[in-house]
């Protein structure tokens, strides 16, 4: 049995008790509210949860502040005194305050032992032992939200120096006494929000533009405009690769908002036919999106929800990842996505909380998972630069022309001048023929020189920026989902009557009904039973069981 005690904020010293997984009470009939009493307990046993109320005579249990029933100096919150103690179970909770001392809160349980003594009298007589104590605390502050009972394993060693058990560590001495309430909670409010720090502006040093396809066409035209390059080259001496001023160009599958403005590069406005490129510029770099919350409820309400279960999550641009059922089952899973506009990097965080799930006996809220990916698709940029080609061509021709002058100027002059021609002619045909051959050789050599130069510097330079990548995720689903594969247990009709369900607690046999099987039992006070009968009974209780 586990007992949850919640302090009523309005009445911290009058606790509201809530019992979970009450096994001892299941065998007993619920207490009946007597109409004539206003302070009767009502235990509503349903689906392993029972709530104890202070009920009014209308017999409708309401979650109320408990009322006190005075008896001497002890305020007792008790069940109906007319309990049938053979079939009923009783919870007694009382708070004792003496003078200015702190309150002593104690919750006792008492059930079905056939005794005719009033549970109230047993309380007064101090007949209840520690095994009946569910809760004990000294406090005048709001009560803790959870307490466990009978923690025998945290008992400290005895003070007897000859006690052999002191020689060996028994374990549990330094345990944290199942203090599951002592945990830090990481809420969704702890997740960062893109703010001025994350979206820091770099002034005009780096600017982010968003261009549509038509704006890209305008930019393309402007980049080819001679005036644009002239402005850039004039401004940036030695700038041989204007595209290097474009840091990156890519597409991302999410949108951000921005403001309209002129496209500028190096504070130069590219223009085409006198028109600038108008597009959107944005100062936003990081985008946060809460993609929703999925609560993975227990389907079977048993350990089968955690074993034989496979849970996976698909994340766009990341893929499929595994989730631990122990963490996510019975919890609300909130997926948050952070995206970087500049790089396309994506960070997913899965926030898990069971604050609203009733099945776990402690509250946990944390971010146990994070995954990263990238969603950018690079856009290759390029331009053809003929300037270097022209320069190379001029240089080559100039060098070739000098050679031509060396080889054939005289011959040309001889051909072109009358005197020379006459002389040449007068010199005879052999001189002109010799000069023509020389010219031909010189021309061929010049052509060869030009051809050689073309292979070296007569080609345009292609400037590129960016690259090409696959961005495979853009061909996949664009929404996230969780996929759960569960093994389905088979429960035959009335299976608990046949084989019982698992348990591992100590019970008084008188408090049990139905099929029962024991892991361990040592029979005492067995009357006339001989050893053989005792041994057989113990064996049968552990193997075949008994129907009580």
């Amino acid at each position, binding site marked *: 049995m586990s007992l949850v005690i919640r302090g009523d904020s309005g009445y911290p010293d009058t606790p509201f008790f809530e019992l979970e997984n009450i*096994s001892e009470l299941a065998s007993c009939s619920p207490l009946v509210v007597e109409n004539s009493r206003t302070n009767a307990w009502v235990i509503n046993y349903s689906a392993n949860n029972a709530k104890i109320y202070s009920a009014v005579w209308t017999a409708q249990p309401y979650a109320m502040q408990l009322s006190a029933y005075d008896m001497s100096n002890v305020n007792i919150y008790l069940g109906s005194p007319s309990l049938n103690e053979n079939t009923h179970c009783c919870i007694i909770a009382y708070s004792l305050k003496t003078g200015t001392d702190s309150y002593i809160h104690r919750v006792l349980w008492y059930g079905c032992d056939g005794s005719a003594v009033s549970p109230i009298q047993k309380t007064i007589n101090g007949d209840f032992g520690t095994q009946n104590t569910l809760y004990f605390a000294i406090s005048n502050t709001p009560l803790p939200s959870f307490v466990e009972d009978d923690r025998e394993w945290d008992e400290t060693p005895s003070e007897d120096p000859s006690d052999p058990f002191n020689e060996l560590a028994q374990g549990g001495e330094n345990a944290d006494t199942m203090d599951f309430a002592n945990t830090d909670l990481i809420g969704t409010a702890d997740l960062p929000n893109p703010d001025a720090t994350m979206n820091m502006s770099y002034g005009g*040093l*780096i600017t*982010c*533009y968003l*261009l*549509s396809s038509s704006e890209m066409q305008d930019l393309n035209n402007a980049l080819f405009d001679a005036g644009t390059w002239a402005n850039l080259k004039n401004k940036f001496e030695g700038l041989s690769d204007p595209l290097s*001023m*474009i*840091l990156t160009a890519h*597409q991302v*599958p*999410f*949108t951000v908002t921005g403001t309209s403005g002129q496209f500028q*590069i190096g504070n130069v406005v590219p223009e085409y036919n006198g028109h600038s490129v108008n597009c*959107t510029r944005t100062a936003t770099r990081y*985008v946060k*999106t809460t*993609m*929703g919350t999925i609560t993975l409820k227990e389907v079977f309400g*048993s350990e*089968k929800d955690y074993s*034989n279960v496979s849970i996976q999550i698909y994340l766009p641009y990341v893929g499929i990842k595994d989730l631990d059922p122990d963490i996510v089952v019975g919890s609300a899973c909130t997926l948050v996505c952070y*995206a970087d506009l*500049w790089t396309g990097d994506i960070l997913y965080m899965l926030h898990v909380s069971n604050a609203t799930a009733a099945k776990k006996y402690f509250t946990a809220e944390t971010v146990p998972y994070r995954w990263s990916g990238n969603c950018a698709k690079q856009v290759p940029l390029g331009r053809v630069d003929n300037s270097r080609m022209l320069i190379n061509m001029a240089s080559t021709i100039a060098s070739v022309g000098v050679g031509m002058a060396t080889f054939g100027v005289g011959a040309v002059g001889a051909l072109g001048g009358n005197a020379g021609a006459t002389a040449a002619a007068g010199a005879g045909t052999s001189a002109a023929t010799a000069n023509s051959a020389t010219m031909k050789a010189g021309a061929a050599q010049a052509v060869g020189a030009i051809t050689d130069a073309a292979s070296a510097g007569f080609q345009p330079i292609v400037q590129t920026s960016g690259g090409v990548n696959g961005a495979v995720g*853009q061909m996949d689903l*664009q*929404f996230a989902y*969780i*996929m*759960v*594969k569960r*093994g*389905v247990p088979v429960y035959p009709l009335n299976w*608990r009557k046949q*084989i*019982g*369900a*698992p*348990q*591992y607690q100590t019970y*008084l*046999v*008188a408090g049990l*009904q*139905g*099929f*029962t*099987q*024991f*892991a*361990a*039992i040592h029979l005492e006070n*067995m009357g006339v*039973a*001989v050893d053989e*009968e005792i041994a057989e*009974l113990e064996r*049968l209780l552990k193997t075949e069981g*008994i129907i009580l």
Partner: protein
Amino acid sequence: MTINLYINSDDPIVGNKTLSGGTAVTGTFRATADVLRPTFTVTASSVPSGANYAEIPTFGRYYYITGMRYVTTDLVELSLYVDVRKTFLLELKVNSGIVSRQENLYNMYLPDSKTPIGAHKPVNTYKFTSTPFVGGTSNRVVMLVLGGG
């Protein structure tokens, strides 16, 4: 000595068995009687039809009738074996033990090896309701430049 013969219709593992058709047979043992496994001979006509259970108040025990042999046409020999569950039920109830399986008081979060898992494993998918991704790529190119002004 009186021996009460009954008809028991309950499962043997039931503690407080419901007995019907009680017939008292009186007699004496003619030989040594083992309290745990007594054997006695009675007239056949005194044994009710279907009797499978007995009580010997003198021994303070209940018994299963484990054997019935007809010695003669009129005499039948009954072999008994003590039913420890019903005999010592009251003494048992004041004891405590660690319960491993129970019909009403259970913890379903403990592993249960007696519950088989079917080979069929249904797959459930749960979609997150929102996404920042707008079906492929948006229709804008993100361009980061130096000196944008």
